[in-house]
C-alpha cells in the first residue's frame, strides 16, 4: 500500500477502495455482478431443470397425498359428516342425505360425480357404479317438490318468474334487455338482497344454478327453467319458518301462497330415496369410506402402497390375499441387486480388456458395447424372448448338445431368470462405460510396480488394481441399480409373474387403473428408497469414491 492515492487506513478503519467505498462492499458489488451474469447464463438450464425435473417430482409428491376431490365434489355432505360418529352402527342422519342429494345433483350437472366415483372405487369396490347410478336418478329425487309447487301455481313453472323473484331488480332489467345473439356479455346474475335473507338456501341454490347456466352452459338465463333442486330448497326454506308475510317484492303473493301450502306437501325422505337407487347407500361401509376420505389430504395412498388400508379405526394391514406391494418392493430391490451384481461380473472383464487393448482395437470393440444402444429396447427384449423360450434358440442348442432332455427344457424366460438375463444385457453398457473410463486412467505401472515388489498376478490385481477400479464399480453400480429399479418394459415382457417389478404396478396404475395417487405414492416410496440407499452408500463407501472417468 505505497500508492499515494490509497490512504493506508488499515489501522484505523475498514480498507477503502479507490472510489472511497469500503473495499469489502466494492468487492461484493463486483462479485454480485459476476454472480448475476453467471446466473443468467445458467438460467435456461435452471428453468429447464425446474420444469422438467423438480416440478414433476413435486407434483408427484403432492398427488400422493392430495384428496381434495371428495370435499370439492361433496362439500355439504363432508361438512355434515364431520359430526357423525363413524365408529357407531348408526347411519348418518336424514339431513346428511339431503346434503348428499344437493351435492350429487350439482356434481351431476357439472359431470363430476363419476370422477369421484372412480376415485372412491379405489378404496371401496362398487362406489363407481353407485355414483354413476345415483347421478342418473338424482334428478328425479326432488321432482316431487317441483311437481307440487307447479301444481299449486303455474307461476313456479316459469323461469322468468323465478328470475324476477330471486334476482336483483337492476340485474333483471339488464338480463331481459340482453340480446343473446349479440357479442356483449351476459349480465351476471345478482341475487336480490331481500330474498337472500328471506330464503337463504333457495337463494344459494339459485345462485349456483344461475352461475352454471350463464358461465358453464353459456345459455341465456332468461330462457331457462330452474333445476328440481331449487324446489326442494324452497320447500325447506318455507317449512323452516321463513317470514314471507312481510315480503312485498315480485311474486310475493305466489310465495305467500306457497308458504301456506308447503306444510302439507308430500315430502321426500332422501335416505329412502337413495336407498331406493342403491341399497349400498344404506351400508355403513360407504359412509365410513366417505368420512375417512373427506379431508383434503390423506395418507390413504401411502398406506395402500405398503399393503395397508385406511379404516375408520386407523390403519390396518390388508388381507393376505391382497398384499402385493411390499413383496414387490423387496423383489425389485433384490433383483436390482442381482442384476447389478451380474453386470459387475460380466462388465468388469470387458472393461478391463477394453482398457488394456491398443486404442484402435478398443474403439472398435467399444462400438460393439454401444451397439445395443442403437437398437430399440422393445426389439432387444423381444429378441431375448425368441432366444430364451422353451422352443427357443438356447434351449434348442442345449437339447441338440444333449445337455438337457427334450422334455425338460429349461425355463429361462417368463420368470426371474428371464428378467435378470435380459436386464443384465440391457444395462451392461452402463456398467462397462464407467468401468472402462476409470480403468483407462489406471497406469499399467501400478501393476508392474506391485509385481516388481513381489506380488503375484492375483495379488497385484486384487490389492493394487482392483481398489483403484472401485470408483468405476461404484459409479456403474449406482447407474445400473437405479436404472433397473425403475425399469418396467423389460420385466413386463420377459418377467412372467415372478420377474415383475414394482414399476410394473406403477405403470399399471398410471395407464390402466388411473389411480395416479397410488402410483405417486409408490413412486415417492421408491424415490425415498433410492435416496436412502444413496445415503447409505455415501456413509459406507463415500460418494467421492464414485467416478465416471478420469
Amino acid at each position, binding site marked *: 500500500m505505497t500508492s499515494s492515492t490509497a490512504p493506508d487506513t488499515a489501522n484505523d478503519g475498514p480498507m477503502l477502495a479507490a472510489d472511497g467505498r469500503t473495499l469489502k462492499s466494492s468487492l461484493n458489488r463486483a462479485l454480485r455482478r459476476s454472480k448475476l451474469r453467471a446466473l443468467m447464463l445458467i438460467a435456461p438450464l435452471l428453468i429447464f431443470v425446474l420444469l422438467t425435473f423438480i416440478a414433476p417430482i413435486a407434483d408427484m409428491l403432492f398427488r400422493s397425498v392430495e384428496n381434495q376431490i371428495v370435499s370439492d365434489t361433496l362439500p355439504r355432505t363432508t361438512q355434515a359428516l364431520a359430526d357423525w360418529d363413524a365408529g357407531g352402527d348408526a347411519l348418518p342422519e336424514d339431513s346428511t342425505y339431503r346434503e348428499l342429494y344437493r351435492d350429487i345433483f350439482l356434481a351431476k350437472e357439472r359431470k363430476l360425480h363419476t370422477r369421484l366415483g372412480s376415485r372412491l372405487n379405489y378404496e371401496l369396490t362398487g362406489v363407481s357404479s353407485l355414483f*354413476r347410478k345415483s347421478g342418473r336418478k338424482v334428478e328425479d329425487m326432488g321432482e316431487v317438490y317441483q311437481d307440487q309447487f307447479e301444481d299449486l301455481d303455474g307461476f313456479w313453472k316459469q323461469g322468468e318468474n323465478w328470475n324476477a323473484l330471486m334476482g336483483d331488480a337492476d340485474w333483471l332489467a339488464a338480463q331481459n334487455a340482453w340480446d343473446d345473439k349479440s357479442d356483449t356479455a351476459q349480465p351476471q346474475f345478482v341475487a336480490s338482497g331481500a330474498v337472500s335473507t328471506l330464503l337463504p338456501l333457495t337463494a344459494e341454490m339459485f345462485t349456483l344454478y344461475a352461475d352454471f347456466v350463464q358461465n358453464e352452459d353459456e345459455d341465456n338465463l332468461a330462457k331457462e327453467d330452474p333445476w328440481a333442486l331449487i324446489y326442494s330448497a324452497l320447500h325447506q326454506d318455507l317449512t323452516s319458518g321463513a317470514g314471507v308475510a312481510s315480503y312485498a317484492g315480485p311474486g310475493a303473493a305466489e310465495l305467500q301462497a306457497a308458504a301456506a301450502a308447503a306444510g302439507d306437501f308430500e315430502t321426500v325422505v332422501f335416505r329412502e330415496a337413495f336407498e331406493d337407487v342403491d341399497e349400498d347407500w344404506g351400508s355403513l361401509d360407504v359412509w365410513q369410506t366417505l368420512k375417512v376420505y373427506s379431508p383434503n389430504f390423506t395418507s390413504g395412498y401411502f398406506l395402500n402402497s405398503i399393503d395397508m388400508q385406511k379404516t375408520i379405526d386407523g390403519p390396518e394391514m390388508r388381507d393376505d390375499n391382497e398384499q402385493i406391494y411390499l413383496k414387490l418392493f423387496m423383489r425389485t430391490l433384490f433383483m436390482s441387486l442381482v442384476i447389478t451384481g451380474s453386470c459387475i461380473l460380466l462388465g468388469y472383464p470387458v472393461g478391463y480388456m477394453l482398457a488394456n487393448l491398443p486404442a484402435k482395437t478398443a474403439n472398435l470393440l467399444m462400438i460393439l458395447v454401444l451397439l445395443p444402444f442403437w437398437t430399440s429396447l422393445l426389439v432387444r427384449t423381444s429378441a431375448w*424372448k425368441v432366444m430364451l423360450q422353451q422352443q427357443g434358440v438356447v434351449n434348442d442348442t442345449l437339447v441338440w448338445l444333449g445337455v438337457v432332455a427334450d422334455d425338460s427344457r429349461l425355463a429361462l424366460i417368463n420368470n426371474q431368470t428371464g428378467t435378470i438375463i435380459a436386464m443384465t444385457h440391457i444395462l451392461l453398457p452402463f456398467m462397462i462405460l464407467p468401468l472402462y473410463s476409470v480403468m483407462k486412467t489406471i497406469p499399467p505401472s501400478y501393476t508392474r510396480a506391485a509385481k516388481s515388489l513381489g506380488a503375484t498376478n492375483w495379488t497385484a490385481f486384487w490389492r493394487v488394481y482392483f481398489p483403484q477400479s472401485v470408483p468405476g464399480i461404484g459409479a456403474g453400480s449406482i447407474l445400473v441399480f437405479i436404472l433397473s429399479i425403475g425399469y418396467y418394459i423389460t420385466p*413386463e415382457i420377459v418377467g412372467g409373474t415372478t420377474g415383475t417389478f414394482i414399476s410394473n404396478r406403477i405403470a399399471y396404475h398410471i395407464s390402466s387403473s*388411473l389411480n395416479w395417487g397410488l402410483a405417486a405414492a409408490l413412486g415417492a416410496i421408491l424415490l425415498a428408497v433410492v435416496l436412502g440407499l444413496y445415503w447409505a452408500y455415501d456413509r459406507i463407501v463415500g460418494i467421492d469414491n464414485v467416478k465416471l472417468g478420469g
Partner: protein
Amino acid sequence: MKLAKTLMASTALTVAAGMVAADGHMANEMTIVSWGGAYSNSQQQAYHNPYMEKTGVTIINDESSAEAVAKLRAMNEAGNVTWDVVDVVAADAIRLCDEGLAMEIDADEQLAAAPDGTPASEDFGDLLVSDCFIPQIVYSTTFGYRTDMVGDTPPTSVCAVFDTEAYPGKRALEKRPINNMEWALLCDGVAKDDVYDVLETEEGQQQALDKLATIKDDVIWWSAGADTPQLLADGEVVMGSTYNGRLFSVIEEQKQPVAMLWDAQVFDLDGWIIPTGLSDERKARALDYIMFATDTQRLADQAKYISYGPARASSAPLVGQHADLGIDMAPHMPTDPENAKNTFLYNYEFWADYRDDIDAKFQAWLAQ
C-alpha cells in the same frame, strides 16, 4: 447487457415457438389415435383414405391407444388436447366418460342413420354402452390352439384350457383378471348366468383364483396382443387366448397349424371417442369424421381388412371378402352364428366396479 437482451429474445422466441407447436393443428389436419399394426391399416383403408379424398383433410395417425386414457388425462390436466378422435375399447371409453375426458355424443343426431332410415341408436342397439362411445367393431377374446399338439381330439370347450391331462403343454392367458375369472368359474361348474353374481363375492373370487391355480404352473401370462400369436407360432404354448383378429392372421395369413376355439369367447367393443376440450372448429371436424367413418358402408368395408365384426346391425349383410386373401370374411367374424353359439359380453358395469379390487387380488395371487 447485450447478453441479457439476447437471452431474453431467444427465450421469448423459444416460448413462442413452443406455443405455435402446441397449437400445431394446421387448419386442415386432424390427429386420429389408434392401435397401430393391422388394425390401424384396416382403418386407414376403410376410413381415413376415403375421408381424406372426400374432404381434403390430412389425417395424422398416432398409435397411442394403449395409453390413451392416461395420456388424455394428462393432456386434459395440461389444458392442451392434441388429439381429435381416439380409438379405445369400450371399458376405456366408459372410464374416459366418467372422468369427463370424452364428450357425450347423441347417436341419433350426430351419427348417420342406416341406409333404410333406421336411426343410429337402434342400428347400434345395445352396443352403445356409454354416452361418449361410438362402437366400431365387435371383437372377441378367445382361444386358439395348435392343431398338431392336441392329438386326435381337438378341444371343443373352453374348459380344455383347464384340462392339462388331456391337453398337456403351456397355455397363454392375459395377465389380468378380466375374462380369466369368468372362464375359471364357468369351468368350475358355475352356470353362465350366475358368473357375475358369484364373482361379486369374496368366495366367488377365491373360487375363480383356486381354479386358475390348478393350471398356474402351465400358464405363460401375456400382456401384449401379439404375444399369443407368437407363442402359438413357435409352438411354445398348446393354446392361448388373444383377440380373434390376431388368430385370424396366424391361421389365414401366416398359415400356421392353429385353429380357433370359439367356445365362451368374450365379446368386447372397440370404437371412437372425441376428447373434451377441443375448439369448436376441431370438434366440428371430429364429429364430421365420426359421422362419415361409422356409417353402414364404412363399417362393413373395414371387415375386408381385418376379421372383426362391424358394430352396426345394418353392416353385417354387406361384409364381403378379404381384400388380399379373397376369402369370405363372414365365417371369420366372431358374430357369425356358427361361432357365436356360446358367448359372453364383457360386463362393463361389473368390471368398472370390481376391476381395481379383483385386479389387486389377482396380482397378489400371481406374485405368490
